[in-house]
């Protein structure tokens, strides 16, 4: 499972699953809920006496040693150094002085290396606990090694009680200066952003959030490499994340600059809402600023106004200020600036990847979402294949459609395409509402309706295209769980296609698509028997038109098998899944997520029949299939772990189940929040397991 190598990659301690570093941090976390704790470690401790013993001992050692240090505060210096404010360093010239403190060129005496020492102006750590937490965080940050992150060496408290940090000395220009002076092209800016996103992704993977990204914290060095400074140090400002306090009117001007980079949820002052996606928002502002030469919400005269703007409408596209910016970059920047964190990129990795794709000339990309996949494909086929239709729609919907079409074009070669739906929504949402006649606000539903209406009016002469548009619109409605609207569109599309097919004006594959989509709708409506009929028809059509091995054919097949299973014809369903699985395994290029879906479905049947050992095997295999292609904290990994834990519970393997359910919970909670029904399912499982463990002892 998660643990042969620990998260920091350091050598393992205790039972071997986590490193000593991680166990030491867990001890700190006992008294300090903010200390970073490795994923799954808390759950692990409750089940592992070896590791728990170490953490217990470290906890008591730390408390005892803190008592000793307090009782005997003066000791001889451990490192010989010349008299200066900071033990172990000789400070040189002042490089920079700001509101926070001053930065000096310095020499670390022990290593003789040149570095930068940043001294904060006020002694900010009243409580030992706070100081210790801060130091531990610095310790984690100090272990980050990435070309785009300025390495932090260490921190401490000066003789005058002021916190200081020693870090790598980087000489260069602030990112915004660099871009402005050089007149960097959007492409060059995207290249810089990609490197920055890479560095941030590296930190996020280790649980370090910057919290205060801004152009002043990004320096482009002499080699042209952007370097992010002050990682994790936002906490050095004590308990005041940007935006949570300082509401006083006199401070408004002073703080507005910083607020410009704060995500709306940060400005709202809810610390629970702050996660790594705040960094993505800040990065979005930086990106926007570099591209457009101005900030996205420049007009705000007060914090309240800024908050309103940020949580309300999307800003203008960067290309409105700089015509050299192309649509892809518009979309990326605006997506980062989504008010709802769930609509930003999921991770900095995803952002880096999209920027890389842009730079390589590949279409930008998010991750798999089959609804979206259909949307994009159909949009492309039916909006762009017929330039006449595209032109018609364009004249009707003007700029609002332009972005959506840009998006559709980008999807052309896309293979893995999750989250497109969200992107699509963003594309729609980022349109300037003013430009859509007669509408101050345009929801997705309204947008789709507009498309539908106009398509019906303008495309009556081209029913083939119209059917495709309606099918797409129906699927989008389905994605938004608007079943009623979906049904109307999908059924209309299907009727049109049947009529067209009868005249030979529509291919069997196109007809099959409509039939398959109807099956999805019926399945969602729990009209399983009807769904089965639809899927059988779709399967037959697709097998004939595309061949039995085509991915779309296999998809209809899998959905059909799911209908059979839901109707409790388990033997029949198992036979189908076995066949599908065999076929999928025979193909080398079979998509991992689809493969995992088949394996899971197959395992669910075993579970239905009470064969939990086989079910467990299947769930494990499914996890193995997706592990390589998804980030380790992807929601679907969490779901897989939950499946495994459920099977283990049934088999009485309570400790294993406990560990897996714990891992599942930490992933799912992070991804979906504690309130999600699926998360509560996991919590219920954990509760049962805890009781079972209690009963065992």
């Amino acid at each position, binding site marked *: 499972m998660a643990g042969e190598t620990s998260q920091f990659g*350091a*050598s393992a*301690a205790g039972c071997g699953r986590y490193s000593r570093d991680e166990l030491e941090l867990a001890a700190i976390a006992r008294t300090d809920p903010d200390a970073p704790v490795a994923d799954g470690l808390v759950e692990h401790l409750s089940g592992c006496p070896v590791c728990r013993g170490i953490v217990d*001992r470290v906890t008591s050692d730390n408390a005892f*040693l803190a*008592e000793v240090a307090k009782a005997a505060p003066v*000791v001889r210096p451990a490192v010989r150094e010349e008299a200066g404010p900071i033990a172990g360093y000789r400070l040189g010239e002042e490089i920079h002085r700001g509101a926070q403190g001053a930065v000096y060129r310095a020499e670390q005496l022990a290593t003789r290396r040149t570095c930068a020492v940043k001294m904060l102006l006020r002694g900010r750590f009243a409580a030992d606990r706070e100081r210790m937490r801060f130091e531990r965080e610095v*310790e984690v940050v100090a272990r980050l090694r990435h070309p785009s992150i300025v390495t932090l*060496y260490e921190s401490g408290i000066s003789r005058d009680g002021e916190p200081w940090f020693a870090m790598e000395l980087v000489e260069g220009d602030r990112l915004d200066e660099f871009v402005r002076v050089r007149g960097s092209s959007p492409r060059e800016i995207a290249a810089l952003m990609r490197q920055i996103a890479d560095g941030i992704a590296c930190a996020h993977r280790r649980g370090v959030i910057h919290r205060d990204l801004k152009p002043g914290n990004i320096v482009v060095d002499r080699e042209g490499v952007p370097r992010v400074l002050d990682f994790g140090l936002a906490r050095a400002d004590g308990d005041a994340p940007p935006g949570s306090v300082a509401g006083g009117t006199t401070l408004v001007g002073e703080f507005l600059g910083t607020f410009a980079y704060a995500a709306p949820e940060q400005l709202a002052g809810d610390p629970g809402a702050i996660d790594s996606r705040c960094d993505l928002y800040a990065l979005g502002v930086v990106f926007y600023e570099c591209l457009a030469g101005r900030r996205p919400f420049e007009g705000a005269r007060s914090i309240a106004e800024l908050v309103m703007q940020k949580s309300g409408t999307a800003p203008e596209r960067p290309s409105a200020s700089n015509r050299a910016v192309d649509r892809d970059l518009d979309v990326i920047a605006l997506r980062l600036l989504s008010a709802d964190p769930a609509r930003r990129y999921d991770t900095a990795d995803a952002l880096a990847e999209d920027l890389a794709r842009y730079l390589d000339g590949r279409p930008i990309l998010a991750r798999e979402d089959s609804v979206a996949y259909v949307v994009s494909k159909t949009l492309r086929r039916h909006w762009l294949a017929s330039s006449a239709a595209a032109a018609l729609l364009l004249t009707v919907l003007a700029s609002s459609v332009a972005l959506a079409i840009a998006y559709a074009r980008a999807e052309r070669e896309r293979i893995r395409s999750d989250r497109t739906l969200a992107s699509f929504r963003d594309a729609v949402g980022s349109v300037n509402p003013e430009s859509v006649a007669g509408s101050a606000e345009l929801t997705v539903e309204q947008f789709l309706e507009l498309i539908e209406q106009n398509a019906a009016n303008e495309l009556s002469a081209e029913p083939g295209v119209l059917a495709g548009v309606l099918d797409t619109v129906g699927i989008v409605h389905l994605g938004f769980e608007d079943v009623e609207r979906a049904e109307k569109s999908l059924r209309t599309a299907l009727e049109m296609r049947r009529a067209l097919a009868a005249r030979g004006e529509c291919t069997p594959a196109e007809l099959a698509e409509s039939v398959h989509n109807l099956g999805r709708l019926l399945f969602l409506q729990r009209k399983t028997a009807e769904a089965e009929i639809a899927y059988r028809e779709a399967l037959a059509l697709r097998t004939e038109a595309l061949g039995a091995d085509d991915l779309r054919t296999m998809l209809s097949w899998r959905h059909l098998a799911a209908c059979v299973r839901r109707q409790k014809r388990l033997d029949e369903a198992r036979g189908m899944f076995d066949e599908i699985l065999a076929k999928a395994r025979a193909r080398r290029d079979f998509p991992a997520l689809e493969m995992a879906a088949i394996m899971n479905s197959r395992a669910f049947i075993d579970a239905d029949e009470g064969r939990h050992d086989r079910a467990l095997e299947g769930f494990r295999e499914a996890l193995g299939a997706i592990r390589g292609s998804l980030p380790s904290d992807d929601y679907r990994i969490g779901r897989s772990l939950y499946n495994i834990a459920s099977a283990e519970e049934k088999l009485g393997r309570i400790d294993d189940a406990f560990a897996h359910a714990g891992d599942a919970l930490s992933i799912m909670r992070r991804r979906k929040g504690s309130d999600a029904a699926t998360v509560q399912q996991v919590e219920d499982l954990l509760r049962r397991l805890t009781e079972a463990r209690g009963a065992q002892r």
Partner: protein
Amino acid sequence: MGGMDLDRTTTALLSGLFDPRNAAAWEAFDRRYRPILLGFVRNCGVRESEAAEIAQETIVRFVEEYREGKYDRTRGRLGAWLVTIARYRVLDMRRRAGTAKVERGESAIVDLDDDRSVGAAYEAERRQALLREALEDLRTRSRTDPKTVQAFEMLVYHGLTPQVVADQLGMSTHDVYLAKSRVAAKLREIVIRLESEYEEAPGDWEAAGSRPSDGLRG
């Protein structure tokens, strides 16, 4: 290592105090109890210069009474006796200064009218003195590897990260953590030994028994 040093027990010190010419016993006793008393008196809100004076006077007064046979160890703990002397000194000083209450604001934490508060304050000072002595012992008398001690000091006193300590001392971070836990174990061992030398296991102050009977002034 670690055996109890019989010459250092409170019993040994006290018996040495009977002899006015035994300067070593006097010095050892003074070294052990003066810092505790000083800390205690400070916490009563007494200014630094006066605190030093009261601590000094308390020691002198105690030794006098002891030699007069007024202090009987079976009747109460040494600490309780000492603190009672110090308490009267502080109250006496306040009376002379004409202030019943103290003004030092921030940390006049000891309520001299409350036995429990007085006891807790003394106990806290004694514990700190013990830890200081334990640390000194670790550095000078125990045979703990100097590098281990150094790693501990850099980590705990200088707030250096395990990584930096490891780099500077040429060890792994794992070794740094081990050094920390080894030092903690060693210090605990020393503390237990010192406790036995003090012969004053921390306990229920209320049950400490009788106190000096008279007002001890003049």
